[in-house]
């Protein structure tokens, strides 16, 4: 639990979920609904997309497609975190709950904190970290919902700027290899170009190509 309080990202999450609670209130969703979305969806961008698309009158199918595209990033995150959690005896079902908790924050924190945790305790550690973060976010969602009435625009802008700042810096901090640094830089540079194509899956295209180029450079240097 100490790791929950020691991370800047917890503050960022808190502020983000204040924003989500307020957004849900303004889009006329019930408090129970938005709390359930925090509990079950557990991914900030997906919830913002879900609430804003449904709130603007889109159909369920349109909202589902938008959420699906935003959630693809969870797949490589899960694949890269799970090997750190596993021991040879671990059964797949023991990892289901830990898998549900994996989102950007937990992904970044696992790379930072798990190496200091003995391998056989890592699943328990992840459950604890996940539950701690989730409780903080449920509280923030509730608080944001209650405060929503009239948050000033500047406050809203400051909250929304937190996400890119914290994501960028915490990812940069965790870069271990050349491939990670290149992937981050190329990913940032490529998205604005790809987004001009308006494909609807711009992030997926720019992410897979930038990541693959970064890996190719890494591979080529290994061969030298």
């Amino acid at each position, binding site marked *: 639990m100490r790791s929950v309080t020691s991370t800047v990202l917890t503050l960022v999450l808190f502020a983000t979920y204040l924003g989500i609670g307020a957004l849900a209130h303004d889009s006329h969703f019930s408090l129970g609904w938005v709390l359930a979305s925090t509990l079950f969806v557990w991914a900030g961008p997906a919830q913002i997309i879900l609430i804003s698309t449904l709130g603007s009158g889109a159909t369920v199918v349109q909202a589902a497609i938008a959420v699906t595209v935003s959630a693809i*990033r969870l797949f490589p995150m899960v694949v890269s975190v799970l090997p750190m959690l596993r021991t040879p005896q671990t059964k797949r079902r023991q990892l289901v709950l830990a898998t549900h908790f994996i989102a950007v924050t937990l992904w970044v924190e696992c790379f930072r904190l798990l190496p200091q945790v003995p391998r056989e305790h890592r699943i328990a550690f992840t459950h604890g970290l996940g539950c701690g973060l989730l409780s903080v976010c449920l509280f923030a969602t509730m608080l944001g919902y209650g405060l929503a009435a009239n948050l000033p625009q500047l406050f809203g802008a400051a909250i929304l700027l937190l996400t890119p700042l*914290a994501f960028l*810096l915490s990812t940069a901090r965790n870069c271990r290899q050349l491939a990670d640094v290149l992937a981050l830089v190329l990913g940032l540079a490529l998205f604005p170009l790809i987004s001009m194509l308006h494909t609807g899956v711009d992030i997926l295209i720019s992410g897979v190509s930038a990541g693959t180029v970064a890996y190719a450079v890494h591979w080529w240097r290994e061969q030298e």
Partner: protein
Amino acid sequence: MSDFFGDWNALLVLLLAGFLPNEVWRMIGLWLGGGVDEGSEVLVWVRAVATAILAGVIAQILVQPPGALASVPDWLRYAAVAAGFAAFLVTRRSTLAGVVCGELAMLAGKWWIG
């Protein structure tokens, strides 16, 4: 109870449009990632792709800002993030210093514009 959650319809929508499209990627990861070794080459690639997709999400928020962030001019958003990154480097990779400086730069810029 029904006041708290709203009607069952809304919860069904949450399940179909929120929970399932999101959770399916985690479970595919659990299912397919089952046999991958830590330290294997595939994982270097997978991590690079995850990092680059996240970089795309960051870039999207900055280039196509949602809601209230759109009230901050383009140059100020980029300048604030650059200031945050500079503070992060100067403080030998302190995320807190970077986030605080970035936010202060944005607020100072807004105040200066008026």
